């Protein structure tokens, strides 16, 4: 560390860090505003807007009708007029009712206009399971959003990432889908694991998209993951270290763009790749990462494992959900199989 490097002690939960970035941008730019269901008085069901209404009022922190097509589409329209709206989709699982505005308008208007129109908006959305909310409220759908071209897709794993990625998302002239994992937010009624609460600089800062972060260095196996599973992978790596296996953990931080370089660099060192994802196995993140590495560095790959939700909807009952959502043991087992 150079002498100029600022030492940071202050710790925040992920939700506080996310809100801090939004509040800072709203103070700096009158054109930034937030729309969503229960985002004003409630402060966001998952604390994503806690305190914003008190500072900025109802005109800039807007509760909206339960009409995702209308308000997400209105965000597209306001963004095309040059404003910087943030629209929140309460659960990512609700995407279906508004998918035309997301897939066909938000994502494609820039391209269809030959770059003459931009859509500088952020679509925030809560993702993930682990609290028994069943098939319509527990998905991550990372692959669904990363699949269609035209949206940048980011997934913070810690408070530090949550703030820096949000600053970049709001300032970006392109649409950014910001997928925050409920379990990481630090909500009182859904305790977070150790890890997402981190020191967060008080100054504003931007984390570039497409820059995966090496969360733990290792020599034997590369584990690539994102969101909640960064923390599960780190725990697995810690356990495996006791047995003498050195695991490198990569936090993707964004799916679009995908930082293939950092993944390939790690795999060229370890030769072994485990991809861990809380989304469905087929046609998703795990397959894409493996294919990307195969494209770039097939020769460096000795072995590959995928850990993801087997292709079933997320079940309700605790033992059933625990069976399908990858846990620390599943990651350890995959690393051991590959060794």
């Amino acid at each position, binding site marked *: 560390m150079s002498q100029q490097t600022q030492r940071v002690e202050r710790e925040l939960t992920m939700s506080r860090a996310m809100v801090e970035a939004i509040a800072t941008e709203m103070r700096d730019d009158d054109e930034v505003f937030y729309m969503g269901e229960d985002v004003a008085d409630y402060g966001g069901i998952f604390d994503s807007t806690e305190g914003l209404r008190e500072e900025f009022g109802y005109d800039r922190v807007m509760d909206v009708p339960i009409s995702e*097509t*209308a308000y997400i589409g*209105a965000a597209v329209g306001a963004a095309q007029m040059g*404003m910087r709206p943030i629209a929140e989709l309460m659960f990512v699982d609700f995407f279906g009712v508004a998918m035309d505005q997301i897939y066909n308008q938000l994502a494609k208007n820039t391209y269809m206009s030959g770059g*003459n129109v931009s859509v500088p908006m952020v679509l925030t959305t809560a993702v993930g399971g682990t609290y028994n909310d069943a098939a319509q409220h527990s998905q991550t759908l990372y692959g669904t959003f990363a699949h269609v071209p035209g949206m940048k897709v980011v997934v913070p794993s810690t408070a530090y990432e949550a703030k820096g990625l949000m600053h970049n998302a709001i300032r*970006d002239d392109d649409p950014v889908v910001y997928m925050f994992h409920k379990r990481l937010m630090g909500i009182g009624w859904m305790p977070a694991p150790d890890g997402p609460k981190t020191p967060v600089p008080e100054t504003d800062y931007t984390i570039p998209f497409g820059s995966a972060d*090496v969360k733990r260095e290792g020599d034997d196996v590369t584990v690539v993951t994102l969101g909640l599973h960064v923390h599960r992978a780190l725990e697995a790596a810690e356990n495996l270290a006791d047995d003498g296996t050195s695991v490198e953990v990569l936090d993707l931080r964004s799916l679009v763009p995908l930082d293939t370089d950092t993944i390939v660099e790690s795999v060229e060192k370890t030769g072994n790749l485990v991809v861990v994802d809380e989304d469905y196995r087929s046609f998703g993140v795990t397959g894409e990462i493996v294919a990307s590495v195969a494209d770039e560095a097939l020769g460096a790959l000795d072995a590959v494992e995928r850990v993801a939700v087997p292709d079933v909807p997320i079940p309700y009952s605790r033992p059933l959900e625990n069976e399908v959502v990858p846990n620390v043991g599943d990651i350890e087992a995959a690393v051991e199989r590959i060794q």
Partner: protein
Amino acid sequence: MYVDMVTARHYEERLQEEYLEGKQPAFDISAGPIPGELHLAAGHEASGAGVCQHLRDDDAVTAPHRPHHVAIAKGVDLKRMTAEIFGRETGLGKGKGGHMHLFDPDVNFACSGIIAQGCPPAAGAALAAKKRNTDSVAVAFLGEGAIDQGGFLESLNFAAVRDLPVVFVIEDNDWAISMPKDRVTDVENGSRRAGGFDMPGVRVDHDDAVAIYEAAGEAIGRARDRNGPTLLEVQVHRRMGHFMGDPQSYRPERDQDAALARDSIERLAADLRAHGVDDDELDELREDAHKRVEEAIAWAKDQPEPEPGAAHEDVFVNPGSGVTDSEPEFELAGGDD
């Protein structure tokens, strides 16, 4: 208004000729100088002209898949629009959008190929105007087949509850592709949908540009004066198929004949004559409009096709990394690294 209408009519007739080149006698959608589908708006001219007459460049318009008459009336660059329809490099979207996806930010015009999905962005443009405290307005055009779509109904409510300066214009041409209106909705007068949202709803029953102009003036004035949204339905007619190549076998001949007889351009010409405009003047206006169309088409056909490599550009306007490509260094207390 008359100039916009005769421009739009001649434009559609000429595009029909160009489009069918190479596609006859056997219709082959992949042949000829104009790529893709083509939804022409002959018979809709009074709507675009009557409404857009009240609009300025800073007012936003979204149009549906049948957009040309609205684009012309909104003042979209005709040459670049035509080049886009021909898929050329100098088109509005560099050949990436096509005739259903025309964007001209200079006059805040956009259209979308998905039914009713222009309504939410129009409400959003109106929201932006309201937040910025300007007197700009927004107008969403849609067909009568779109009035049962969620995107339309949600937008009516969103606009009503937020008092947004937006006007929704239903162009009722009686047909949703092959489906006559009375077989899909029990509401003969689509503007009655407004009642459910406590919003004014107005219908103009005839293909009458002057009546549309007057009704639109009131609705847009209401929006500009910050008195909230209006739902306006205007009767138009479809002189051609849903898309070029549509055999229209579902459509009774008498319905087609009736559509051809209800010519809003002739009606407006008669009104103008009654107000003392003579035939020579009308001829001159029409000839000038035709000339402008011919020039635009000739210019467009003379433009180069895009380089194939350009297909890889314009997904984003900023770099993929966003506004930064490097991360500042912090020393986070207690971190592993």
